[in-house]
């Protein structure tokens, strides 16, 4: 099942790129296509942040992940690089759990 997702997902993402080189550039003249494709990452990445911070199956919970994300926001405001942001979040959650402050 994971392999199917990996291969099918990869094939689709590659074809999206390839079609861009094959289809006529006049497609770019359609403002609706342009704006939706540009806005999709904003809506969906934000949804992923929310679900991965609070989601636990079908329930919403507050746990050490939230503290990690708050620290990530601070790191981003300080213009930290990607790896530092991700590490800061992981370390925050791991430390809170190690000392029993959060689930």
């Amino acid at each position, binding site marked *: 099942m994971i392999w199917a997702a*990996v291969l099918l997902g990869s094939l689709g993402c590659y074809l999206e790129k390839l079609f861009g080189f094959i289809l006529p550039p006049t497609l770019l003249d359609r403002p609706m296509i342009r704006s939706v494709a540009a806005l999709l990452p904003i809506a969906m*990445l934000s949804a992923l942040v929310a679900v991965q911070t609070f989601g636990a199956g079908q329930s919403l919970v507050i746990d050490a992940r939230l503290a990690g994300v708050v620290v990530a926001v601070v790191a981003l405001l300080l213009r930290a690089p990607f*790896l530092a942001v991700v590490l800061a979040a992981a370390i925050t959650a791991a430390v809170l*759990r190690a000392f029993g402050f959060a689930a």
Partner: protein
Amino acid sequence: MTRSSDGRRRPITSSAIGIGLATGAYGLSFGAISVASGLTTIQTQTLSLLMFTGASQFALVGVLGAGGGAIAAVLTAWLLGARNGLYALHLAPTLNLHGFRKPVAAQLTIDESTAMSIAHETTVAASRHAFWATGISVYVLWNLGTLLGALGASALGDPAVLGLDAAIPAGFLALLWPRLRDRTAWAIAAGGATVALVLTPLTRSGVPVLASALIAVLAGYRLRDRT
């Protein structure tokens, strides 16, 4: 002539390598998070080699890891990758590709190579060089980073204890951050997060993130005459 074009190429090549190194660090966290989400090292590496578009890769493993199922994971990855098609449409006239270069360039069409190519659109030669140098540099270093991250995470233990589950939303946030440039972007982000959270208790895992795409469609429809 040769000297002056070399003079213009060198700074582009070095920024391309710099961007590749920074992206290699993302690759490191992708490799670790993917393995922590339950994929094997080979599956993780396959994603970086074949899918090669960061947000879609993170989303695919994130949805799978949260139990969202293969269909939701694939659809989420495709929707996030749609922008690459748009980049290709924009780049096609400048790159003017023929033969085997077309399918190769397609694979290298991502945020970074597109941004570098557009930033050097003053001359066609510089723009092409920026695309290829950045694409190749990011491809190599992203894959190297993925491998190191995946092997590193395999060597470590329970991901929740280590806090890698908190690294996943932090990674998505870091991908989202540079896109939050204006009030419209913030509104769309807030809308997407709200839709996803409201739907989480009501639908099966994976659906909430897909449904957030509707916010982008609605906003895109309303803003269609503004861009």
